[in-house]
């Protein structure tokens, strides 16, 4: 992947943390865009944050921001964290407990030798902008989760950084606050001119706030795309889980796709070789009798598991090919579907997404 963008963050980095873990990623974040790095815990997200922020040097590669090289081992360039103009909002916020809210927010400016008066002025302005007026003298310990998060954001933004880096900004909050703050955060992200990198494990955060999502698993980026692309065409089991999709590894031969000795009829021609099948749970219909219609893929099976999620229900069907199916509660009730029920499933060939390629560790390439 070549470095192209001069306006924005370019990162191409390999970092060995210890014997067990290696980070190997490449990404470009243009100015004015929000990019999310989405992955499970342990995937390497915090390592990526530390490397970009300048708290950890990389082993191989290059990090550049607006054309300025921040880290390049080959030319022995390493700009320490305090010189990089990156605003970071940390998981757990890391507000200085011995300083007041105002002192916290003004910290970056004061460290950069801005006079106290001006620093306080600008800090108060940001606090007000984030709806925290009047909290100047409070201590971080006295703030609610939502307030603390916004103070952390103000602290990062007041220094007018070139890049905004948010490390799991909402994960420390309870679900309701999280939903509220997601909106606020979205607004402020949009108002920030530079590139914005959002690190998270929460797919809602990523899909709702980001323009582009990179899925990171075990130190590597396994899929990149817009939220919709990932939702519709996940390429790894993890991505499929996020999207809630069914993910099946199969083999194509002579235009016929076989998965676990079961034949699936797909719409488009496909060349021989290993393939990855994704079927959205809502694309599967359930019948109590063998259906008589257009769907080419039908078979008899049993309901193994029923999961009620309010007005929706997720069913898991069993042999010959296990699937996750989503129906409405009304439908479930009408058909009296429960664990052990004998049903027929039907899937239109056009609803089956086929991605060609070898899978390595379950990742379609």
């Amino acid at each position, binding site marked *: 992947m070549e470095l192209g963008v001069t306006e924005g963050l370019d990162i191409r980095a390999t970092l060995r943390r210890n014997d067990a873990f290696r980070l190997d990623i490449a990404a470009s974040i243009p100015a004015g865009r929000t990019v999310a790095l989405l992955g499970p815990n342990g995937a390497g997200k915090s390592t990526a944050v530390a490397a970009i922020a300048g708290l950890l040097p990389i082993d191989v590669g290059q990090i550049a921001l607006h054309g300025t090289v921040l880290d390049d081992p080959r030319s022995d360039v390493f700009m320490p964290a*305090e010189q990089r103009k990156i605003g970071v909002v940390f998981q757990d916020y890391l507000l200085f407990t011995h300083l007041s809210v105002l002192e916290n927010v003004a910290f970056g400016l004061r460290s950069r030798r801005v006079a106290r008066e001006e620093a306080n002025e600008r800090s108060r302005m940001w606090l007000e902008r984030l709806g925290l007026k009047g909290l100047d003298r409070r201590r971080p310990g006295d703030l609610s989760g939502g307030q603390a998060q916004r103070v952390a954001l103000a602290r990062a933004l007041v220094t007018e950084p070139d890049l905004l880096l948010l490390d799991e900004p909402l994960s420390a909050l309870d679900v309701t606050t999280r939903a509220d703050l997601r909106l606020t955060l979205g607004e402020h992200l949009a108002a920030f001119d530079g590139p914005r990198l959002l690190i998270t494990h929460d797919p809602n955060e990523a899909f709702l706030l980001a323009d582009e999502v990179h899925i990171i698993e075990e130190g590597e980026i396994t899929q990149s795309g817009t939220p919709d692309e990932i939702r519709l065409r996940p390429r790894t089991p993890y991505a499929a889980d996020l999207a809630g999709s069914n993910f099946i590894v199969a083999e194509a031969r002579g235009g016929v796709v076989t998965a676990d000795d079961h034949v699936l009829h797909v719409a488009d021609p496909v060349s021989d070789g290993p393939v990855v099948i994704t079927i959205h749970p809502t694309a599967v219909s359930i019948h109590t009798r063998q259906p008589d219609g257009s769907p080419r893929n039908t078979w008899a099976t049993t309901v193994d598991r029923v999961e009620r999620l309010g007005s929706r229900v997720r069913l898991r069907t069993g042999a010959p090919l296990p699937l996750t199916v989503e129906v409405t509660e009304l439908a479930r009730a009408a058909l009296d579907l429960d664990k052990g029920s004998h049903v027929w499933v039907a899937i239109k060939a056009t609803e089956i997404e086929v991605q060609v390629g070898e899978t390595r560790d379950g990742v379609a390439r």
Partner: protein
Amino acid sequence: MTPTKPRRDKTAGRPPALLIVLGCLGLSLFVVPFVGLLGRVPWSELSGLLTSDVVSDALRLSVVASLAATAISMLLGVPLAWLLAKTDFPGRSVVRGVVTLPLVLPPVVGGAALLFALGRRGLLGEPIGELTGLVLPFSTWGVVVATTFVAMPFTIITVEGALRNMDTRFEGAAATLGASRWTVLRRVTLPMIGPSLLSGLVLTWARAFGEFGATITFAGNLQGRTQTLPLAVFVGLESERDTAVAISLVMVAVSLAVLITLRDRWWNSA
């Protein structure tokens, strides 16, 4: 209307009886000697004894020396603790061992070592004496050196422990906000270990205030110049018991005042 006990007390319950017994036994070990001391105080002559020049000289020397030792311990001990905690240099564990040595050695041995190093015929003392004319033994500065020697390890150990246990992510956060290493130290690291630093300094002061063995071995014993309160007590015991008891009372009173003033802050250090 009789006030009722808050219901909360019902759930707290009494501590186990064995703990109370053992705790009281432990407490008595400390309380009984003080009661014994109080019993010997010549209350009627106390004011006269306390204003005698022996006592006032000793008190002045003790206060000056212990405060000086504490100040030096902070000035030199904190940087040393920082190096031990934050940097990895060859021989670090040896350095840490050496720095802890005064805690383990009998103070008299420490005093003897100081004499061998900084005495008039000492390894460093001789050349220093010839070059600058400075003679540390038998001088007030000698008292300061001796008390600093035995007390500084308290500062170093407390501060090193606090630095190791603090959450270093805050220093990283400060760095991303543009703080230089010095600013991080000044505005984040030190304030965050503030409570521990304070209790370390108090321990240092307390040790310096009560120091005897190294002082008498290195600095000698002369009223007004090197005879601190502990030395005055010791010498007074031989013949002027009442003076000795009076001085002991002064020491106990001063120490208790300082320690009680700090109250819970002592234990609440992060």
